[in-house]
Structures are given as structure tokens and as C-alpha cells.
């Protein structure tokens, strides 16, 4: 095995120290309930401004699939003091960039700009937090745009929406967890301005949002600017987030669909994992396990299935259907997703996955395997945090879901403390009876 090959004995013998980060974080809450996270970093004259609303795909009403995402588009269509197109022009005319994205449990809006545009960015976010300007014309326009987004990302390409839209309906039974977050054209076209206004009133309260800033500012300066622009955003009650809990599976679930455009078979499997928020200690071993199984050529399943058996052409493993281990709430899952060569047999691959999980559960990890996996995870965590935008988004989401952005700095240490025993137990829990699998049946390349 790899770890017994010593090209450079001195280095190989030494354990690599896992570094942590020590980004300063200041947190407070305004009178209207807006949570604020400030992470100053003067190393480059740039700043990231993110607003994260605590509402996502799981909260959209039945009959309105895709609405959380459609609404995200509407938040860019003008606001209390701004006409349509003004938001884009002000951000970009400041030398900045912007975007927004809709997730299962939250929706984020962000700007990344030269730091001389900080106050402008805060104004723009505050203005739409007060009220977006939603007109029938803009709603119809954005339904068209979103329809093209769905066509380009899902309908017009092979493996569109696989597995993030295709696997949840196999694993889950309730609408919030199972439905298509991009939405059906029927539901999207049925959306009304009144729906949007209701959605905004309920979920886009300041008390349901987190404002996160990272980059080139002082805490004093940013605090004053945040107060200036957000303190008078009217307060509304924070909506109660319902439980989306579902029982674990007790019998294996399988489903398949024909993808007319896919030339080769594929499948994805998922197993439920402990609650990422309330049971974080039990959840973290699964984060490490996903990497043990699929990170690089020396991971268990890549070595076995890709390199040795050649039963799959590629395999990935991650936490959460959108691959966000630290930005998702319960219920969620460990997901394995694999593409097969022509004529590949999914049952054989699943049997091998079970075999490898058994081997891990029985024999444990090999010498050095845990340390090198943790080193990789540390690099990935640090890489996510290098951009001030990544830092603002992660800190804001962690503050929103876990109550303390400071946990961001603790993640490498917490993952470093995950034990072999807990990973072995996690592997042992990934039984076929708890598994949901969706198969892509190739319809032939068209």
C-alpha cells in the first residue's frame, strides 16, 4: 500500500499537521432581527457581501414547485428605490459581480466588489430586503428565463438533474423533501404576483435573514454602515421553520428512468445520515467517510471500482443532495453517484460497494489512511475559505443554521478529531436495506 512506500523517509514518517484558520469574526443582531456576521480581512482591497434567507426549496408550497428559485430571480428585478436592471448596473458599474442561488434550506444573494463599493452593496441588499418590485411583466419575463435555465441544465442535456433532482423522490415520501426544486413548467407558469408577495412577506423578513460581510473593512466602519442601511428595514416575525423529518428507510428502494439523451448507464444511491445540526458529532464521520470512499485514486471505491474492476468510469461521494455538507439540515443523506461503461451492470457495482463497506466495517482503515484523508479535507475546507466570497457565504450560512459563524474556524479541528471507530461505525450503517437508488437507463445518444 501507498503508505509503506517511502521515497523520502523523513517526510513520510512525519505526520502532516492539519492547519486551522483563525479568521476574526464579529457577530451581532439588529433590532429588526437581522443577524450580522463581519469577517474583516485587509489583505486585498475587495469585499464580499452576502445575504442569506432562511428559506429554500423545501419550504415552497405544493402546486408551486420551483417557486423558491423563481422568487430568487424576482429579487433582482427592481426594489423599493430601484428600477429593473438597476441592481445589475450598480453592482457591475462598481467593478463588482453578483449572483444568487437557491438551495434546499436557504437562498443566498451575494456581491463581490472592490472595497470602495461596500456601502453601495449594502444599500442594494437593504433596498430589496425592504421590498422587491414585482410586476406581472417581470414575473412573466423571469418565468421564461427560468424555463430556459431548466432546459439548458436539465431537459436538453444527458443526465440533466442527475442525481440531485432524481434521487430525492426515491428516498423521500413528503412533498418538501421529494419534489423537483427546479419546478414543473405548469407550476412555474401558474405563479402569480400575489404568490410572490406572500412568499416575500412570510420568508424574507429581516429576522429570517443573515447578512455576512468578508474582506477589506474595519468592524467599526462596517457596523456603522450596516446600521445605517439595515436598521430601518421593517421588522416582521420570523417564520417558524417546520420539521421536515421523515423516518429512515427500512427496506431498500430502487427506481429507474430512461434518459433519451444518455449514452451510458449511471446510478446514484443514498443513505440517511444523522441530523447535521443537532447531532453534528455523529454526522461528521460521514463527511470523512465520503472522502475515504471516493476522494482520488487512493480512495476505496475509486481504487476498486474504477481502477481495479473497471466497473465504473467515475464515482463521487458527498453529503447532501447538493453536495454541501455544512449548509444542509435534516433530513439529508450520504450520496454515491457513478457512471458505468457500456453495458455495465448496476447490481454488480452495488454488490461491490456493499463488499467494500463491509471490508471497511470489518477491517477498519489501513495505516495512514485516516490522516491523509483528513489532510485532503483540510485543504478543501481552506480552499473554500480563501475567497472572501466563499468565506462570507459559509460563515453566513453556518451562523444562520448553527447560531455561530465562529464554528467555521473550528471545522478543520472538529474533522481532525473524527476517530477511526466512528468512521467504521458509519460504514457499517450504510446497509442495503437503508439505501435508495435511482438508475439512469440510457435511451441511446440522440
Amino acid at each position: 500500500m501507498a503508505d509503506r512506500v517511502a521515497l523520502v523517509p523523513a517526510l513520510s514518517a512525519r505526520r502532516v499537521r492539519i492547519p486551522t484558520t483563525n479568521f476574526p469574526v464579529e457577530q451581532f443582531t439588529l433590532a429588526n432581527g437581522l443577524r450580522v456576521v463581519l469577517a474583516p480581512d485587509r489583505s486585498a482591497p475587495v469585499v464580499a457581501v452576502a445575504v442569506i434567507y432562511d428559506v429554500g426549496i423545501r419550504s415552497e408550497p405544493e402546486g408551486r414547485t420551483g417557486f423558491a428559485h423563481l422568487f430568487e430571480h424576482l429579487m433582482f428585478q427592481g426594489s423599493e428605490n430601484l428600477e429593473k436592471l438597476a441592481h445589475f448596473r450598480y453592482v457591475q458599474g462598481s467593478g463588482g459581480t453578483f449572483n444568487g442561488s437557491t438551495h434546499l434550506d436557504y437562498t443566498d444573494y451575494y456581491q463581490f466588489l472592490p472595497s470602495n463599493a461596500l456601502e453601495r452593496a449594502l444599500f442594494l441588499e437593504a433596498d430589496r430586503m425592504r421590498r422587491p418590485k414585482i410586476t406581472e411583466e417581470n414575473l412573466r419575463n423571469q418565468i421564461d428565463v427560468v424555463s430556459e435555465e431548466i432546459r439548458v441544465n436539465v431537459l436538453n442535456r444527458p443526465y440533466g438533474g442527475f442525481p440531485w433532482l432524481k434521487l430525492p423522490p426515491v428516498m423521500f415520501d413528503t412533498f418538501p423533501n421529494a419534489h423537483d426544486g427546479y419546478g414543473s413548467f405548469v407550476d412555474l407558469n401558474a405563479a402569480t404576483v400575489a404568490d410572490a408577495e406572500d412568499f416575500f412577506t412570510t420568508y424574507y423578513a429581516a429576522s429570517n435573514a443573515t447578512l455576512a460581510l468578508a474582506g477589506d473593512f474595519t468592524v467599526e466602519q462596517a457596523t456603522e454602515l450596516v446600521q445605517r442601511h439595515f436598521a430601518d428595514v421593517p421588522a416582521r416575525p420570523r417564520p417558524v421553520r417546520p420539521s421536515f423529518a421523515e423516518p429512515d428507510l427500512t427496506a431498500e428502494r430502487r427506481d429507474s428512468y430512461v434518459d433519451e439523451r444518455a449514452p451510458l448507464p449511471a446510478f446514484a444511491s443514498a443513505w440517511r445520515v444523522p441530523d447535521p445540526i443537532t447531532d453534528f458529532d455523529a454526522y461528521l464521520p460521514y463527511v470523512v467517510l465520503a472522502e475515504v470512499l471516493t476522494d482520488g485514486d487512493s480512495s476505496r471505491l475509486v481504487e476498486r471500482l474504477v481502477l481495479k474492476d473497471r466497473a465504473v468510469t467515475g464515482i463521487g461521494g458527498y453529503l447532501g443532495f447538493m453536495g454541501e455538507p455544512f449548509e444542509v439540515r435534516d433530513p439529508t443523506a450520504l450520496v454515491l453517484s457513478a457512471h458505468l461503461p457500456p453495458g455495465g451492470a448496476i447490481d454488480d457495482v452495488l454488490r461491490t460497494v456493499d463488499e467494500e463497506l463491509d471490508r471497511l466495517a470489518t477491517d477498519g482503515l489501513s495505516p495512514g489512511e485516516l490522516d491523509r484523508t483528513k489532510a485532503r479535507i483540510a485543504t478543501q475546507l481552506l480552499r473554500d475559505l480563501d475567497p472572501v466570497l466563499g468565506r462570507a457565504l459559509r460563515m453566513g450560512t453556518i451562523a444562520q443554521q448553527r447560531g455561530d459563524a465562529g464554528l467555521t474556524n473550528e471545522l478543520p479541528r472538529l474533522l481532525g478529531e473524527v476517530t477511526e471507530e466512528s468512521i467504521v461505525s458509519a460504514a457499517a450503517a450504510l446497509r442495503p436495506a437503508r439505501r435508495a437508488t435511482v438508475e439512469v437507463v440510457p435511451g441511446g445518444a440522440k
Partner: protein
Amino acid sequence: MSIPVPALTPARKLKLPRTAERTLANGLTVIAARRPAVPLVELRLRIPFAKTNVARGMLLAETLLSGTSELSNVELSAQLQRIGGHLGASADPDRLLLGGAALTSGLPRLLELLGLVLTDAVYPAGEVAAERDRLADQIQVAKTQPAYLAREALNRRVYGRHPYANQTAEPAQVAAVRPTALRSLHAERVHPAGSALVIVGDVPPAKALDAAEAALSSWNGGGKTVELPPVPPIEGGPVLLADRPGSVQSSLRIGLPAVGRTDPDHGALQLANLVFGGYFSSRLVENIREDKGYTYSPRSAIEHSSAGSAIVVSADVATEVTTPALVETWYELGRLASTPVGTDELEQARRYGIGTLQLSLATQAGLAGLMSSLAGSGLRLDWLTGHAERMASATAEQVSAVAAQYFAPARAATVVLGDAKVVTPSLSGVFPIDDGED
């Protein structure tokens, strides 16, 4: 009551990171920059790779990390993991690019493993056979992707017989590549002369150079210089319609001429491109997305390659609006080429063009990619300072003049990938069509 939009505070001058550079005795150029936000290092090694066989080049990139005489692929991967690292390789008609990252403490080891791969990759027969099959499968999948197919059609239309016309091999061509061919290609072309290694991260630049010199000095200094011929001029002509039966969108792709980063027109061209479709607040996006709702992500970009530059305009539009979407796109090209650029839109584009330069320097990975890409044109980060000045000083007249020259629709190469049966009746009524049948 309306609240005024806050003004910008004075802009800070473009601040470049600290860099150092050294050319090793074997000809390798090493450039290092410091960005200490997180304790990581990024590296990019760019090796000239012009005129290599496409199938062999692609497979070489897939198998370069498949093993050395001492380490198997799995062992190599585990060694990289120990330092939190990874390495990857990709090939295109200009270069072979190796990219990677690791914890700062692992930089010497990362460079050592990089050196090992460069000097001792063995292309084991078993691994090559496996990667050959995987690559053939991946190409087969790529050939069902509209983005891939549209680009392939545009490359053929724009580049004709130039090597840029064919950037991906056929699965059968990949299947025919033997390990000996990869070993020969490596021996011929994977050399330090003309190559540039970029190291960015939480490490003093001089120390990064020393580490690179220690690890890579023994890399063979031989190798020949291969130059690509310049790309042919883009010829206007009928719309090339590539059929994709059942497609629910049409992929519009338009190729236009452009100049390289050192051309005196480049700053003005950059601004003209922004005004046209180079960012969200552009004419194209505001027209066919925010007004008409025809598409999700229309855009135009200036693409620089070793043998020439081009502007590429793209939009994926609903099949039923293919013709009006192309009409609007051509209208915007013609309007930019024939009428003066507005003052406000030009100033907005200028602030975006200059302001986002600072953003591009603000991450380790972004900085490393930018430095490597500039090095491919023989440039360094200080080019950005001049670029900012050229964008700052370009006049509306200069921008309109380059727009007339480079955005003229009569000189555009236009490709539509879509369901020909559905779009032809409408499209052929407005545009001359070449259905590729002759």
C-alpha cells in the same frame, strides 16, 4: 421618498501581489506570488504542446499520473493526499497543463512528486488500457452535450484546416493509442524549455523558487520548439445549421475576430465586448434575456489562444424563438458596429473592466490561473497595470472604431445547433443557411 444610491468611495489603485521569478538552468521559468489568506499553495505548470496528435495528447493527460517506475497510481495519489494535495492534467491544442494544490507545508513534497511524474511517468499498459476506455466513454458522453457539439461545430467553421478546428479526438482514435506512443510523446514534448511553473500561496516567493529549483532542476532540458501557424481570418457567410433532432433549445454560437492582449486595440476591444455581451449589464443580456426572455445565459467573451484570438458569442434559446433570438443578436452586432457607443454604458463597462481586475487577484486559485494564462502569452501580472490604464484611457471613438472592425456581423461565423426540421422554415426565411450537406 427615494433613498439615493451611495456613491463609491475613492478606488484603491490596482494592487499586485509580491512576485519573484527565476529561469532554471534547464530552461523552466518559475514564477511565484504570495497570497497568504489560507495556508495552502496552488501550482500550475504550462508545457507547450502545439501540433501534438489530439488523441495521444488527451490520453497522455489522463495517464500522466497513472504511475512512475516506483509508484503506482494509487500510491502516487496517497502520497499527494498525505500533504492534502492533488494534481491533475489537461491538454489542449496549445499546452499541457498540470494543476494542483497542497497544504503549504507540503510544497516541497508536491514539487517533488510533480518532478517525479515529469521525469519518470511510465504509462503502465494496464492503466493506459483502462484510461483509454474511460476517455472514450467520456468523449461519447460529451458528444451528446449541446454545449460541446455547438462548440465543435463553431471550431470547424472558424478554424477550417487549422489545428484548432479539431480539439477533441473521436473515441475510435483514442482506442488506437498504445502506451509506447504516450511514452514517445512524453519524451518528445514534456520538457522544461518554454514551460512556465506558477506557484501561488502562503509562502515567500523566493522560498517557492528555491523549492522549485531543488525539485525540478533534474528535469530534462531537451525538447523542440513547435509553433502553430496563425489562425486563418474568420470568413462571414451563411448560418451553419447543425442538426440535433429533438433538441428543445437551439445553441447559437458566433465567432468574430479579435486581437491579442498586447495589441494596441485590445483595451478598447475589451470595452466594446463588455458593452455588447461581456457582462450581465450588456446590450445582449438586457435585450434577449431581461427584455425578451429568450435565454438564460447569453454572453460574449474574448478568447486568447497562442495562434490567435477570437470573440465567441453564445446563447442557448428555446427552439421556437431561434430565429428572433438570432435576429436580435445580429441586430445588436450591427448596432454596435455602426452606431456610437453611449457615454453611460461605456463608463459603466470601463468601471467593471477595471474594477474586476482586482477581484481576479483575490484568490490563490484565481491568481495562479491568471498568472499561468498570462505566461502562456509571454506576459506577467504587470500587464494588468497597463491593461487597466488602456481601458481607462480608451475614448468612445476608439471603442466605436474597434467595434466597427471586430463586431461587424458580415464578418461573423454563425452556427446554430438545434432541431433543423423545426427551425429551418423560419430561419431560412431570414438568414442564408448552410446545412453542412455539400
